[in-house]
Every structure is written in C-alpha cells, then in structure tokens.
C-alpha cells in the first residue's frame, strides 16, 4: 500500500505532494508536510551522530506505516510512505540484483524527476513541480504499477 509521496527541495521547501489510498484523510496538509520535513531533517542528523559514521537515513517503521527517504547529493529529498510490510525501497545500493521494485525512489529521481523536471527548460529550480504535467502523469503511472501499490499484507 502506498500512501504519500513528497519531494523536498533545498531549504525544506515542499515541491511536490501526492496522495493515494489515504484511509484517514489529512486534517491539515501544510502542517503535516512541515512535520514530515522536520522529522526528516532531525532523523538525518540523528543518523549521522548515532551509530557508525557515514550513516544515511533510509527508512523508519511504525506499527501503522513505513516512511522511506532518499536524499540526493544535490539536496533533494524524496519521501514515500507505505504500509510497514514493504521492504527496503533502495536496498539495491547494497546488493545490485537488478530487482526493479527495490529502487523505486532512485528510479523516480533519476528517470522521472531529472528527465522531466530538471531538464525542462520552463522549470525554474526551486519552484513547485505542479506545472510539469508530464512528470506528474509519469509519476502516477509509475507508482500505480508498483506491485505493492494497493496490496497490504
């Protein structure tokens, strides 16, 4: 089950927020987005201090849901919330098995975001991506074809 997708640019700005299968409607979208981006920042710093050096935050699990995060070298953060049974979404960095489901977030960044947003001449860096309709439609079709899109264990 996939619930939400976010892209945060540099400086915590939310560039994109998408929603699927939400059973509990969101009470306050702005507030929730702020919470997510704040949580992400804090966890990133927590991970760099706790545990071995060089640790990068990748996911957290609660009994209700799981949040996967992927941060790029240029400072974008991609976040996907799913149900807790979904396995690590970007584990293929460690074991390159060629298994596509494993790097959903990496694929969204490299094949969709870079191709259809960053390379779009009308897009200005730091803007909302709502004008990039190709990106949004490709994102929707990509996410909706994931094997775990609407199945919950």
């Amino acid at each position: 089950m996939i619930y939400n997708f976010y892209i945060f640019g540099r400086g915590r700005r939310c560039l994109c927020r998408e929603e699927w299968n939400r059973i509990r409607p969101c009470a306050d979208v702005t507030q929730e987005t702020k919470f997510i981006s704040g949580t992400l920042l804090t966890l990133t710093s927590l991970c760099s201090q706790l545990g071995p050096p060089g640790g990068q935050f990748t996911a957290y699990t609660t009994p209700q849901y799981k949040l996967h995060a992927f941060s790029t070298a240029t400072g974008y953060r991609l976040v996907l919330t799913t149900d807790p049974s979904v396995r690590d979404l970007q584990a293929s960095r460690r074991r390159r098995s060629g298994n596509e489901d494993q790097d959903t977030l990496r694929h969204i960044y490299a094949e969709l975001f870079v191709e259809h947003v960053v390379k779009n001449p009308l897009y200005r860096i730091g803007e909302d991506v709502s004008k990039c309709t190709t990106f949004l439609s490709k994102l929707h079709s990509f996410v909706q074809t994931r094997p775990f899109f609407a199945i919950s264990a």
Partner: protein
Amino acid sequence: MVGVASFFVLNRNGSLIYDLELQSTGSTLSSNDKIRLSSTFHGISAIASQVSPVRNRAGGAFSYPAPRGITSMDASTFRLQCFPTLTGMKFFCVALPPLQDCEPLLRQAYALYSDFVLKNPFYELDMPVRCELFDREMRKLLGDPLQAAGR
C-alpha cells in the same frame, strides 16, 4: 551473536535512564550527547505516530492498547530497533550489520528491567538506573566481549 553496538532505555517522559555501550562504532558520544540524541528520538517518535496516514489499528474502546511510535529506523550503516512498552517506556538498541531482528532481545531486556530494577526496593521510578545486578544481566544478555573474556 547479534551485533548490538549500544543499548538505551528511556522512561515515559523521554529521558535517558540507562545506556550501555558494547561495541565501539567509531564515533564517540559523550553522556550529554546520548541524553540529547535519545530524547530527540523520543520526540520524533511521537511526531511520527501523529503524521500517520492511516488510523491506529485499534479494535474499539475496550481493546488492548497498541504501542505507537517508531519501532525501527534504518540507516545505510546501521539499524535502530525500538521496543515501546505499554507503559510508554522505550527500549532501543543500535544494531550493526549483519542485521538481525533484535525484538526478542529487547523484550528480554524489558523482562530483566522488571525483575532487577522495578523489584529493587532502592530504585525510584523514572530515575536513572544504577543497579549492579541489572547491569550484569544486561551484559550477559547482549554478550559483552569483556564479560565473555572472564573479567
């Protein structure tokens, strides 16, 4: 053996009451850092359960209360696994790869806590744990290399 690098216990207010370092991870944390980081984790865990996209899986007003908050956090080099107790305490550990499920270990740690700390007549609730027996049992449970060498 499970590769547990460090182990922490938070009370229900989110302050650190016990910590144990078993393996060096390369980064040294002062006791102030440990207190700060672990209470940060407590706060983040509360926020994480608030921004949940789904309802709590509770079965009505008379159901058994389900613990909330982060149960595990993955980073590229380690995993933090947490066992939230029904009373609001948090038992968590930093596990190094090869990763294994640490939940049974944390549940056992909770059992040890109730046996050796809560039954200690000199222990005050919510205060830092200084019980020699608990310390010894925890080191035995988590397999401290110093203990194994027959110190």
